[in-house]
C-alpha cells in the first residue's frame, strides 16, 4: 500500500536515508517472521537508532493513525512481527548495545535489539549469566523475548523471561516514555512489568531492558536416557519432579526428532530409541553428584534402556546440540514444518502423546515431538509440503486440534511462542467472551485507537462468534476452503 504523502514526509524528516525502507524489493525481506506461512509486505520499514527517533515515529503514527508493528530479529513463530500492508514495520535491530553490566546488583541493562546470547557472553567475565535461553538465542533479541515472555530449556529451574526482567523503558503510542519496574525488586502501584512481558508489541515499544543475572553454576552435567516406550519416559519426568529435584533442564524428544537431530548434528543420540530424556543438573559438585544418583534410580525404575552422562563441558554441549537444533533438523525431513507450542499438566503427557499420534494418523501427516517435558510444554512439529495439494490446510487443522487437546486437558494453546496472528482463533477456545473483552479493555487503556500491532494476540469477539457458529459438526469447519486468517 502507498503511504500518505504527509506521513511519509514526516518519517523522512525523522529518519536518515538508509533508515527508511520504501522500495518494494527491500520491503519483501520483512514480509514474515519465523512463521513463514503468513506473509504480508509492509507499507514501510523504519530502522531508527535513537530513542528520540522512536518517540517521534510513534507520535507521527499516532497523529496519522497509522498502525505500527515492532520487530526484533523476526524469529518469532506465531506471526507476531508479521507486517500489516497499511502499517509501518518498526525494526529495533539497530538498538544493539549493551549499556551496563552491574555485577553488584546482578543485572544488565541493554538495548532491545541485543541478542539473547550476547547478554550472557558480556556477563561471563563477571561469573554471571542471563538464564532464559530460547533455542533461538544466537539470533533472537531481548526485546522480542520480553514481548513474547520467551522460555528456554533452563526455565524449569530459573523461570521465564517475566521472572528475569527487572526494568523496562517503554515508548507509548503517543510517544511518551515510561519506566516500568526499577533497579529495586519491586515498585508501588500495579505490576505493569508483568503485563508488558508477553504483550506481543500491543501495549508499547520496548527501548531498554534491565535483566537479572545469576552466578554461573560451578558444575552442570546432562544425562541422556533412552527409552523404548515414550510413555515410560513421560512417567519418569513426573517422578523426577515429584522426588523433589528441580533439574536445570528436562527435555524429551521422540524417535522422529531423535533421528533428525542425530543425522543433522551427530550428537550421539541412540537412533533406535522411542524417546530420549535430557536431564541437566547444576549446582556444586556435591549437589550434582547426589542428584544424578537419584535421577538415575528413577530412570531405571521406569525401564530406561541406556543412560549417558556428560563428563566434561564439551560433551555437555554436544548432548544439548541435538536438542537445540531440533527445529532446523526436523526441517530437513520435509519441505515445510509447522511448530506447535501447547502446554499441559505434566501428568497428562502419556495420554496427550497417544492422542497426538492418533491425530497424526488421522490427518496423514508425520509429527516429530520435542518437549520441554519438565514444564509440560510440547512442541509437536508437523511435517508437510505446502506445494502438495491441501497439506498446508491439513497441517493447520491438525495443529489447531492439538491445541484444542491441550486446552481440554487443562493446559494452554501457547507456552512461549505467543498467539500472534497464528493462534488467534484458538484464543476463542481458551477464553470466554468476557475475558477477551477484558483483554481488549486492557489494550485500550494503553492504546485507545488500537495502533500497536492491531489484529494480533486477542481476537475480536465477532470472530469467535462466527467460529463458534461454524463449529457445528465435531468441530469441523464446514467450509475448509475459506481463508481463516
Amino acid at each position, binding site marked *: 500500500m502507498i503511504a500518505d504523502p504527509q506521513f511519509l514526509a514526516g518519517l523522512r524528516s525523522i529518519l536518515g536515508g538508509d533508515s527508511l525502507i520504501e522500495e518494494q524489493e527491500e520491503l519483501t525481506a520483512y514480509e514474515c517472521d519465523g512463521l513463514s506461512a503468513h506473509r504480508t509486505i509492509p507499507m514501510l520499514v523504519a530502522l531508527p537508532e535513537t530513542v528520540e527517533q522512536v518517540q517521534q515515529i510513534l507520535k507521527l503514527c499516532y497523529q496519522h493513525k497509522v498502525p505500527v508493528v515492532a520487530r526484533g530479529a523476526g524469529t518469532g513463530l506465531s506471526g507476531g512481527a508479521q507486517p500489516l500492508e497499511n502499517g509501518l514495520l518498526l525494526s529495533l535491530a539497530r538498538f544493539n548495545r549493551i549499556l551496563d553490566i552491574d555485577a553488584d546488583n546482578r543485572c544488565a541493562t541493554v538495548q532491545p535489539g541485543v541478542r539473547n546470547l550476547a547478554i550472557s557472553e558480556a556477563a561471563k567475565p563477571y561469573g554471571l549469566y542471563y538464564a532464559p535461553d530460547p533455542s533461538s538465542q544466537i539470533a533472537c533479541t531481548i526485546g522480542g523475548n520480553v514481548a513474547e515472555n520467551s522460555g528456554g530449556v533452563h526455565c524449569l529451574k530459573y523461570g521465564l523471561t517475566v521472572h528475569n526482567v527487572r526494568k523496562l523503558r517503554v515508548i507509548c503510542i503517543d510517544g511518551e516514555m515510561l519506566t516500568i519496574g526499577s533497579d529495586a525488586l519491586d515498585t508501588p502501584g500495579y505490576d505493569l512489568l508483568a503485563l508488558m512481558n508477553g504483550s506481543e508489541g500491543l501495549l508499547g515499544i520496548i527501548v531498554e531492558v534491565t535483566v537479572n543475572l545469576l552466578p554461573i553454576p560451578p558444575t552442570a552435567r546432562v544425562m541422556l536416557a533412552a527409552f523404548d516406550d515414550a510413555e515410560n519416559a513421560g512417567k519418569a519426568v513426573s517422578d523426577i519432579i515429584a522426588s523433589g529435584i528441580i533439574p536445570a533442564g528436562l527435555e524429551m524428544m521422540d524417535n522422529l526428532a531423535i533421528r533428525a537431530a542425530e543425522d543433522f548434528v551427530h550428537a550421539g543420540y541412540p537412533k533406535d530409541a522411542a524417546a530420549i530424556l535430557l536431564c541437566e543438573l547444576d549446582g556444586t559438585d556435591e549437589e550434582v553428584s547426589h542428584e544424578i544418583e537419584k535421577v538415575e534410580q528413577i530412570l531405571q525404575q521406569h525401564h530406561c534402556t541406556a543412560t549417558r552422562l556428560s563428563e566434561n563441558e564439551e560433551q555437555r554441549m554436544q548432548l544439548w546440540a541435538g536438542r537445540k537444533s531440533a527445529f532446523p533438523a526436523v526441517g530437513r525431513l520435509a519441505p515445510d514444518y509447522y511448530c506447535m507450542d501447547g502446554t499441559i499438566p505434566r501428568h497428562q503427557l502419556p495420554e496427550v502423546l497417544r492422542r497426538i499420534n492418533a491425530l497424526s494418523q488421522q490427518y496423514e501427516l508425520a509429527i516429530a515431538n520435542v518437549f520441554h517435558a519438565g514444564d509440560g510444554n510440547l512442541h509437536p512439529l508437523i511435517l508437510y509440503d505446502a506445494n502438495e495439494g491441501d497439506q498446508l490446510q491439513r497441517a493447520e487443522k491438525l495443529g489447531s486440534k492439538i491445541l484444542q487437546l491441550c486446552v481440554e486437558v487443562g493446559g494452554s494453546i501457547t507456552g*512461549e511462542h505467543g498467539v500472534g496472528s497464528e493462534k488467534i482463533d484458538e484464543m476463542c477456545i481458551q477464553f470466554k467472551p468476557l475475558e477477551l473483552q477484558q483483554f481488549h479493555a486492557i489494550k485500550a487503556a494503553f492504546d485507545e485507537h488500537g495502533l500497536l500491532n492491531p489484529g494480533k494476540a486477542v481476537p475480536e469477539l465477532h470472530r469467535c462468534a462466527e467460529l463458534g457458529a461454524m463449529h457445528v459438526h465435531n468441530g469441523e469447519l464446514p467450509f475448509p476452503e475459506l481463508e481463516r486468517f
Partner: protein
Amino acid sequence: MTLQQQITEAYASATPLSICGGSSKQFLGNPVAGEALSTTEQRGVINYQPDELVMTVRSGTPLLEVKEILAAQHQRLAFEPPSFGKSATIGGTFACGISGPSRPWAGSARDSLLGCTIINGRGEQLHFGGEVIKNVAGYDATRLMVGAFGTLGLIMDVSFRVLPVPATEITLSFSVDAAQAVTSVVAWSQKPLPISAAAWLDGELLLRLSGAEAAIRSAQLQLGGEVSKQRDFWLQLREQQLDFFQSVKPLWRLSLPMAADPLDIPGEQLIEWGGAQRWLLTDEKAEAVRQAATSAGGHATCFRNAQENDIFSPLSKPMLTLQQRLKKSFDPKGILNPGRIYTEL
C-alpha cells in the same frame, strides 16, 4: 447472595466496596470507605497435586492452612509470605503481594502465581492463566492482581507454584556493621552459593543457607562465620515479631537496589534481602524518607504507624494516568477498594 451478585449490585448502584479476607493487613494502605465484602466463606483447596508442584485454592482459605497442607507433603511456598496474624488468607496474601526473607533468591509472590479467577468491578467472573507453568495466551492479567490490593478485582481463587522444602537449612552469623554486611552479601550473591536469606540488625549479619546437605557444608567452609543458635529468627523477622518492630514510630520499608549505599538518614535500621529491603524506624518527614529512597534508585512505603495518608511513593504523572485507565478497564465505576493504594485508583 454470592460475591458475584454482591459486586453486580454494587456496580448497578455504584456503591464502593471494601474487600477483606482475614483483615490481617488492614494496616497497610489507606483506609477504604465502602461496604464490607468478606471472602472468608470462599474457602477450601480446589486442586493439589504434589507431583505437579501446583496448588489451586479458594481465596478465603487461611494461609496457615495452606502452609500446613503443603508441609505435610514436604512442600512450601517459595516466597515465604508473612501472615501477620492467624487470620491471613491466601487471597489477601497475593492481593498484597508481600514476600518474605527468601525473596531475592527464590522470587516474589507474583513469581509464584500461575492463574486466578477474579470478579471485576462490573461483576464479571473471569479466569486468567491456569495450572500450567508456561502460559502466554493473552495478557498476564494474573500477575497484575499481585500487589493491586483488590482494586482491580476480587480474587476468587488462585493457582500457584510450590516447591519442595530444602533438605537442609543453617544460619551463619557474622559480627559486622551495616555497610560491611551489605558489601559482603553483595559479593557472595555473585557466587554460586546456596544463600536463601540475609538480614542485618544490631551489628550482626545473619545468613541463611538452604539446599542439599553437601552444598551447605562446602558453602559453610567458604564463608566462615558462626552457626547461629537463634531459633525462629527468620520466622520472627518475617512476621515482624522481633523487638525492632515493636516500636510506635513510623516503620518505613525501603525497597532499593541491593548494593545501594548505606542510608544517610536518622533512625534505626534493619536490613533485609541482602540490602534490597531496608526497614527504617524514624520520625523524619515522609518527604525526606522518600527522597532518600528515590535517590538510591528505589521507593519507600510507610508500612506501619503512618502519620498521614498516601503511604506509597507517588507515581509520575504519565504513570498515574495509565494506571487510572487500567483501573477503569477493570472497574469502571471505581467500586473495588477505592483509594486503598492511591486516592486516584
